[in-house]
């Protein structure tokens, strides 16, 4: 069993334990044990639009993983993007020494030895193990939405096609489910846009959900996508009942296919029934 350091990010840590627990449970099945990185803070993203201290936050988090001796696993696109860019920026030795002067004050140091992997990247490296663990057929149509910021900029992300990503599709196909095409597959969910303009952000989400409606479930791999597409569905007039599209995080879907109890994946009874039918 390989151990890695989990960086859940603010949203998942504080609001979406379901995504975190499903991730831990499913990765254990494929031979990866996740330990939360103690003292981890915000990745730094919200600071970048205002000042350069975002780099200190990112470096701080990287140094915590380095202290554990673990590579880092991320669950959100935004955190992944920021940490990867910080990691690249800190290859510059003079910038690194400058940041280390701050980290030294709290007894930390960053040497540039930590790898950052988004969950999708880690899972696509374990397709054979995933296939072996499937114990339940899911005869459902799945729409996937890709974590934009974990794929771009491609010179740093590198593990997938940056404009027509395939990794999530391959992961869902590995558990035997049917991945459907839909027009808005490559469009952003609207979550970050919502911060600047609620109407435009929700409109992006509405278009995505309408387009993904050809599927039985929409699957994401980012706290921001899950926030806008699932939790904000109510704001789009799709709060409940037959109008609501089931939206799961990727490990929740994988866990259901592995026969893991829905409670252990944080999947509610209505969604479980809708996806698994009478086989539950």
């Amino acid at each position, binding site marked *: 069993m390989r151990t890695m350091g989990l960086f859940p990010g*603010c*949203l998942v840590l504080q609001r979406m334990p379901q995504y975190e627990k499903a991730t831990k449970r499913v990765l254990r099945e494929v031979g990866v044990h996740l330990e939360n990185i103690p*003292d981890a803070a915000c990745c730094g993203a919200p600071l970048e639009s*205002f000042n350069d201290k975002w780099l200190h936050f990112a470096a701080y988090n990287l140094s915590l993983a380095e202290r554990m001796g673990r590579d880092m696993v991320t669950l959100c696109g935004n955190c992944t993007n920021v940490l990867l860019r910080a990691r690249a920026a800190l290859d510059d030795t003079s910038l690194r020494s400058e940041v280390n002067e701050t980290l030294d004050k709290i007894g930390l140091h960053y040497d540039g030895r930590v790898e950052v992997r988004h969950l999708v990247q880690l899972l696509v490296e374990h397709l054979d193990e995933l296939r072996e663990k499937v114990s339940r057929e899911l005869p459902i149509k799945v729409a996937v939405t890709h974590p*934009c910021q974990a794929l771009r900029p491609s010179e740093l992300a590198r593990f997938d096609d940056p*404009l027509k990503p395939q990794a999530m599709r391959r992961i869902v196909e590995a558990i035997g489910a049917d991945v459907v095409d839909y027009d808005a597959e490559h469009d952003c969910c609207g979550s970050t*846009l919502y911060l600047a303009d609620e109407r*435009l952000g929700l409109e992006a989400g509405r278009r995505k959900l309408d387009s993904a409606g050809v599927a039985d479930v929409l699957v994401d791999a980012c706290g921001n996508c899950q926030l806008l597409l699932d939790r904000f569905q109510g704001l789009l007039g799709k709060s409940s009942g037959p109008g609501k599209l089931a939206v799961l995080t990727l490990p929740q879907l994988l866990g259901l296919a592995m026969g893991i109890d829905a409670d252990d994946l944080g999947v509610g009874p209505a969604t479980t029934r809708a996806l698994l039918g009478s086989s539950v």
Partner: protein
Amino acid sequence: MSGGEMEALLEDCTQCGLCREVCIVERLGGHSITSFLCGEEEYSSWLCSSCWRCQEVCPQGVDIHSIMMEKRREEEPPAGHELNLVNVLRFGYALPVDDSVNELRRFHGLDEAQLIPGEWVEILLQGQE
């Protein structure tokens, strides 16, 4: 940033408009940094979904992200972004932290989160303008 530095960032832009074509904000009727790059005056550097498609498709390798970040520091921030900033400055997280964080985690059978100590947040922010 000086005007000269911004000019250097913009130097390779040919205003071909590919960035604007792939921008979801533009498709939704808003005007993002890609409108600025195409020479328009009506845009907001904050209107962005952070999807990075514009930079990915740019044939000239223009660092659109850096241009946008510089422009943001000159423009009034929207309330949502400002709230995230205030939370990070105060708690070290984009969302406010209280006891309910670990209650929710315990309910889901997860270990309590060990959060960043407040004095470390201050150290990381030292010298902030």
